[in-house]
């Protein structure tokens, strides 16, 4: 699995979308024939993946908002979603 680097600018893939599921009162990630029910932290991370912010900026923003943020867990979460192609990462370093 490819790791994500601090300069990557992740965003949801065009065929994936995040939605609030009123029946379960949770955020969910929807993709071709796949549903992932997100925890609060997952939806917070994905909500910041706008293709503009870098991974470093996302982590910094999460630290500003929450007390306990594991940088490694955020990176692992994004790498997992990127491997499934729910998240796209464009490397910001070569701009």
């Amino acid at each position, binding site marked *: 699995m490819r790791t994500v680097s601090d300069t990557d600018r992740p965003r949801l893939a065009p*065929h994936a979308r995040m939605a609030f599921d009123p029946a*379960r009162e949770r955020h969910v990630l929807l993709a*071709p*024939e796949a549903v992932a029910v997100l925890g609060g932290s997952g939806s917070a991370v994905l909500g910041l993946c706008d293709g503009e912010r870098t991974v470093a900026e996302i982590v910094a923003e999460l630290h500003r908002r929450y007390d306990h943020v594991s940088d490694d867990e955020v990176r692992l979460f994004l790498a997992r979603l990127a491997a499934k192609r729910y998240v796209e990462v464009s490397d910001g370093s070569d701009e």
Partner: protein
Amino acid sequence: MEATSRPPDGPFGLLAELTYECPLHCPYCSNPLALADYREELTTAQWRRVLAEAAELGVLQLHLSGGEPLRRRDLVEIVHRAAERGLYTNLITSALGLSPRRAEQLRAAGLDHVQISVQADDPALSDRLAGTPSFERKTAAARLVKELGWPLTLNVVLHRHNIDRIDRVLALAEKLAADRVELANTQYYGWAWRNRRELLPSTDQLRRAEAVVRAARERLKGRMEIIYVLPDYHGRYPKPCMGGWGRRQLTVVPNGDVLPCPAAHALPLPRASVHEHSLAWIWERSPLFTRFRGTAWMPEPCRSCDRRELDFGGCRCQAFQLTGDAARTDPVCHLSPDHGIVVEAVRAAEEAVRADEGAVRADDDAVLPRGGVLTPRPHPSRPA
């Protein structure tokens, strides 16, 4: 009812089999043999109500299938209603009938994803398995899907007559820029059950296929997702059918019957229909959905098995089909007292493959060994 009666998360997916009309005649079709019983199809308004109730119940994914869902003239309207409810919509299609105009209408209505079946990588073999010239139209439609910006899944059902060609199937998927490819070993229900003797691959064929899939997954990592649906007859343990009975998915078939799994048409339980009950009642209360929910119904060896929450005793429909009793352990499990039935079917397949290999070159393009033995699935309106 016991505590396991209603799983806390409710159903995630609804498989809507809109019609059993289909231009193809695939001998591995999972549709029921009694196709003519399903000709009285739900109306647009009835489907609209089903979708609304499904969304209320927590359904997030809608799989539009059949038969061929494009045969329904109201498909665009159904997609539109589903998208309005926030459902993620998947069209599962032969692609016959997916004209540029229809595709654009579906795109505008909010369809999220298209899955197109091909029967093989080779046009002549694909057409022969499908029972109608269709390969060229399928690949043209696959290109159209990509042009319109949809994610594309290519689906190929695997069996004795195409499983040795997975490398070429994957090359086709790459050429068509598929995002996902689903290599689905045939599951033996409906027409596939009738043709099982001619479809079941040998253990050697499967071993080779799995090696090809492993190498391709490595090579295509991050570019194309390869889903390989395991052949349960050859495994040690059964498949976790539907992720557990009445636990994650429900199926509505063309006449409005609601099933816990798309192969459950013939189970000897009272039928549940949207004509008589709400989806919520059917999901929570109907005997069909509660009978095998959870683990309390299980016989030995499932009841005390460590894997009972992993594979849920396997497939109820398969247990019924092979033993006549839907409450027995799925005979594909090597711990099942009925496992001999499956061992015998696999042994017969080994023998048949050896005979085929003696009769034709293994690599003979576009030739179905001993052709004509497979029973094509007929049109519902023209029974076999």
